[in-house]
């Protein structure tokens, strides 16, 4: 199984390669990718240098151009694909049908991956993208169980890549307008979700509240670790009860089910977190390198590595998410 690591900066890219990533994925410094955060991402020159470093060691770099081009202004997205192709990126990760069509016609030699943002969750959808645009790999949406992934892999001809570690959306990706409903800024259009520009923390009596777009997303009592107010990870009142209605502030961690994912025929494991610092990237990638190597040699996952990942998990708690049926 290929280990695909995130890089929000050239420093993270170098750290990921040093830690044993087979592949690094990244985006350009603009709204053409789904992690369009201030101070993040790559200029074309930085991508060129990253490609040189990766290719020197026989590793790969994938470029995510995975937001949806704006009506009347599709050129920036096409330029991003052109640039990635001309610099020799090993694949581009796309989600928009129009852009996939453009890329497949303009750059027939360029390897196309389908972004998780396209939420291709079943055979007919995957077949559509494979046949229409020659997509070679699909990043599966985080809504499928391991059994469903195994069933899919028995039927599809393309490779599948799944998320193994990091932040996770409880919603089908690319079909969520919660952030734009509350802040006006959308993952699909702007490449951001619950943007920091709309976040505030306030003290209310003893409690610290986190707000997004002026609405309370969570409240923390003294001694409670205060998290970032990602909309779907907040505490809300429904039927008179307070709780994490959509999802707890948990990190996905597939460490315990790697051998199942391997058996399910998954080609690549992806670490989420292009917005994370290089120390985090280095640590998670190194841990997953050890896990994958152990699983590939049919050994046990080293216990200290699993414990290390536990510590790195957001909010100190983890989930195997939709990979287990009970999550639903």
């Amino acid at each position: 199984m290929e280990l695909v690591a995130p890089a929000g900066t050239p420093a993270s890219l170098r750290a990921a390669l040093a830690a044993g990533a087979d592949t690094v994925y990244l985006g350009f410094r603009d709204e053409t990718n789904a992690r369009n955060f201030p101070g993040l991402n790559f200029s074309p020159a930085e991508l060129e240098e990253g490609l040189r470093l990766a290719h020197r060691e026989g590793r790969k770099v994938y470029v995510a151009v995975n937001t949806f081009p704006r009506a009347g202004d599709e050129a920036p997205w096409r330029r991003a694909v052109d640039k990635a192709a001309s610099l020799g990126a090993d694949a581009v990760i796309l989600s928009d049908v129009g852009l996939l069509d453009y890329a497949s016609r303009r750059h027939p030699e360029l390897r196309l991956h389908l972004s998780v943002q396209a939420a291709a969750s079943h055979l007919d959808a995957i077949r559509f993208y494979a046949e229409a645009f020659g997509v070679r790999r699909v990043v599966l949406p985080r809504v499928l169980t391991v059994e469903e992934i195994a069933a899919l892999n028995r039927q599809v001809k393309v490779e599948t890549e799944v998320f193994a570690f990091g932040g996770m959306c409880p919603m089908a990706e690319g079909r969520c307008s919660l952030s734009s409903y509350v802040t006006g800024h959308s993952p699909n259009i702007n490449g951001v979700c619950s943007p920091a520009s709309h976040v505030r923390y306030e003290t209310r009596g003893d409690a610290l509240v986190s707000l997004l777009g002026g609405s309370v997303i969570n409240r923390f009592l003294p001694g409670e670790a205060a998290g970032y107010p990602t909309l779907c990870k907040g505490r809300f009142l429904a039927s008179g009860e307070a709780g994490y209605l959509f999802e707890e502030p948990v990190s996905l961690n597939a460490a315990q089910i790697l051998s199942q994912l391997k058996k399910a025929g998954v080609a690549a494991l992806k670490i989420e977190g292009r917005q994370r610092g290089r120390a985090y990237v280095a640590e998670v990638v190194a841990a997953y390198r050890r896990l994958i190597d152990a699983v590939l040699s049919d050994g046990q996952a080293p216990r200290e590595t699993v414990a290390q990942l536990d510590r790195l998990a957001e909010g100190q708690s983890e989930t195997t998410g939709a990979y287990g049926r009970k999550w639903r």
Partner: protein
Amino acid sequence: MTAALSLGPVFFHWPPQCWRDFYFRLAEEAPIDAVYLGEVVCAKRIPFTAPEIEAVLSRLKRGGKRVFLSSLALIGNEREAALMRDLCAEVEATIEANDVGLLDLVAGRPHVLGPFLNIYNESTLSYFAAKGAVGACLPAELPGRSLARLAATAPIPLEVHAFGRLPLAISARCFHARAQRLHKDGCQFVCGRDQNGLVVNTLEGEPFLAVNGLQTLSYTCLNLLGEVKRLEAAGISGFRLLPLAVDMVAVARLFREVLDGVSGAEEASSRLEDLVPGIPFANGFLYGAAGRSRQSALPLELE
């Protein structure tokens, strides 16, 4: 020709008889041109309305409505994919595809592109249109500027949402069940308890969202009475009303009156308020603002 009015699919898990009677009344009384019918949210609900669908279909057709069968918004497993293949095998029906996986199944015969397909730009729209689509309902979060750009070159008629609780997200997890500490597999169909969705409040009691099974909806109610004429002038040819458990016949009449120039938008809007008591209006997406906001200050950009 003035713009068409359509009725979107009922997102909620209403009792089958209510569901049937809702359509029976609409078929006869509402000034609606087209009706989108079918379960969009959760495959587990399909058996409930299935016995009524033939009667509803024929009543709607007798009432002069064009009828489209809408697909699920999220197809999560092989069983659901098979259900959708069966749906597309209905050769008499015109399908509204809400997932790209259906497009090959309906290629070569008339079908509609649903709002859950991500059509954000001209290239995607023309790609889909070339496969035989006869219309498209655009995603709810598109700003007016994008709608106008798409309308300017659209090869097929375009529809936008104009009324109702907007679909914001879909998941494999059932939030309705989760709110009752249940799982999807043993959900007891608790989503049936909330005919307009379960309101989700912030910890400070501010109404925030509404959940409907696997789906998350806006708490606010979209109201584009003030904008439909301008959108029509910009080339949008249909407006979709999303059913709520309110007097949808009266809602449809208000929209028809405004489109026909019989009523003014402001006056109609205040009458609409009486029909949807307690749910505030919003129109923010159209202005490129927070979807839940109600804009009067921002200019509506349609160029």
